[in-house]
């Protein structure tokens, strides 16, 4: 589903190179964890996948279902089925959450040639998804993410993910700022989305989230490259020994 080939990317503004030749393949149905110390390029990778303008790809390619997405803008990538759950979801005053959900869902439906969702059907879907995530519907009356706590923002991201039904879910540090109960609810939400035709990329610093979203593969990103890959046991080793030993070995 996702093939990242020798991906080099830098910060557009100052040219600092962050990704220095990432190679990674994620198959449909797979849950892949990306781990790595701070500054290894994890968040950059997620932004480059989503098409954020602040980064420039200088070399390599990203193939999604066999086609390069590098020329696509963020909206086109999202419509193609890529979803990024943000580490720090933006607060957008003045944009009503329900209105946003309606516009986003219908924009993607339109690209896929599906009919627009009418308000009653939309409300039904939102209510069902919110219930599963134990979110209060009254939150959704507020402007988008405004005044949400850290945990509420993360839940709202997963809510959007459930509603938009992407093919590739990229979770950027979704566990940060969550207490253990919220973590379970969010993990259950992600697990419910696991399916043979969907892939999930879980980006995390800690092993904790991976106890709840059990990955098929684990990849360690270090200095802008995948330093080592393995099965879920690799995450446990990292938890026990830290990154130093492993990346030392790889380098």
């Amino acid at each position, binding site marked *: 589903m996702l093939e990242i080939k020798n991906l080099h990317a830098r910060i557009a503004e100052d040219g600092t190179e962050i990704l220095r030749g990432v190679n990674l393949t994620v198959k449909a149905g797979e849950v892949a964890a990306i781990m790595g110390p701070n500054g290894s390029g994890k968040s950059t990778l997620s932004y480059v996948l989503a098409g954020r303008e*602040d980064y420039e790809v200088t070399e390599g390619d990203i193939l999604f279902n066999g086609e390069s997405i590098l020329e696509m803008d963020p*909206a086109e990538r999202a419509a193609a089925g890529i979803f990024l759950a943000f580490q720090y979801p933006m607060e957008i005053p003045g*944009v009503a959450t329900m209105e946003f959900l309606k*516009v*986003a869902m219908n*924009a993607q439906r339109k690209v896929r040639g599906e009919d627009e969702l009418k308000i009653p059907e939309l409300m039904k879907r939102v209510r069902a998804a919110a219930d599963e995530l134990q979110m209060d519907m009254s939150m959704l009356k507020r402007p988008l993410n405004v005044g949400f706590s850290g945990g509420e923002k993360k839940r709202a991201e997963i809510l959007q993910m459930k509603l938009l039904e992407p093919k590739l879910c990229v979770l950027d540090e979704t566990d940060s700022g969550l207490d253990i109960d919220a973590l379970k609810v969010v993990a259950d939400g992600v697990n419910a989305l696991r399916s043979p035709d969907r892939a999930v990329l879980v980006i995390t610093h800690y092993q904790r989230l991976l106890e709840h979203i059990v990955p098929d593969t684990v990849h360690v990103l270090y200095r802008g490259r995948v330093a080592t890959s393995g099965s879920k046991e690799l995450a446990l080793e990292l938890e026990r020994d830290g990154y130093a030993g492993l990346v030392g070995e790889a380098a």
Partner: protein
Amino acid sequence: MNMHMQTTRTPAEEALLEAFSKLSTGLPGNGPVAEKRQEAVELLRKGLPTRKVEAWHYTDLRRLLSRLPDLEATAAVTARASILPDSVVLSVLNGRADAPEEIEGITAATSAQKLADGTAAALLGFEASDDTVSAINSAFAADGFMLDIPAGTEVSRPIELQNLHAGGQTHTRFAVKVGAGATATIVERHSGEGEAFVSSVSHLDVADNANVNWIIVQDQPESVSHLGRINVNIGQHAKVGLFVMNAGGKLVRQELRIVAAGEYSELRLRGINLLAGQSHCDVTMVLDHAAPHTTSTELFRNVVTGRAEGAFQGQIRVAREAQKTDAKMACNTLLLSDEGGFSSKPELEIFADDVACGHGATVTDIEKDHLFYLMARGIDEKTARGLLVKAFLAEVIEELEDESIVDALETKLDAWFAAHG
């Protein structure tokens, strides 16, 4: 103070004087009214103000209003459906007021009548030599409506003063007196088709304990020069909600002259200026806090696209006796084009020592992060930008309590975005 004495007249300056010599004998009013008109024309004879006149620094009227269209409209015009549901519509069509509809408990007359019988003479005239809008309108004002809402009256339906044209030159005068404890919602609406020169001056006199919402909606086509002004006087414990929306016009100057005259009077002023194409829009406010314990808030949100230029001048003057004044002013602009511009000039003149006054102005572009977030959910760039621009404006509209006003203004916004977004 003949600051704008000019040696050669522009075509517009010539046209104004010619229009007066042609029209003056036919304009309503003799005696004091005619004298006021004559005084106004004497001021116009000295020429239109340039940017050297401080009040006109951002709007060089002499340069921008270089010529005038023909006097007469090019077509007939019919009244439109009101902006707010279930309104009483009083329309001025091509400068002539229709016979006013009967409104229960309210005395209504056309301004032509009030000028003809001389009772409106006191409304004519100008404050100072830079008060060009009042002067032009005093010279030419031909019609409009004058309403008297008696004390204690709750006017249940909104009243829409509808000023429509199909080109030509029109000069209207509106006056509404709101008696003590009365409540009313008034819409002042200016629109039309074709090339036109419009001046319109309104007077809102709000007696003690009264509560008035006054909404100005100007959506002239980009072939119209529009000079507007409202003079507001607010009595003790009275409340005025004033909303200004400019969504059109080639050259627009809207002046707001407000006096918080009575103790504990309150003004809530909100405005949206939508600028597109090559338009020039200037909102100039002079607000006097003249009594103790008066409160005012002023918030403007502007969107500038294309090569449009905008300006907001906000002057708040707090008199020595106006202790415990609370005044807050803000002007925020979303500048969506490198070729457009917006100038903001706040001015506080405070002579009392126990007051809370503040102002702030910002000019920004759309937040890139916000745009990315929306696009990352599959919303295309144009739609995402539209959502963010509306969000910027929504804050001004949504705090209005009346749902029907919110809906009506949002409909106007949508129409503007459909045409310019």
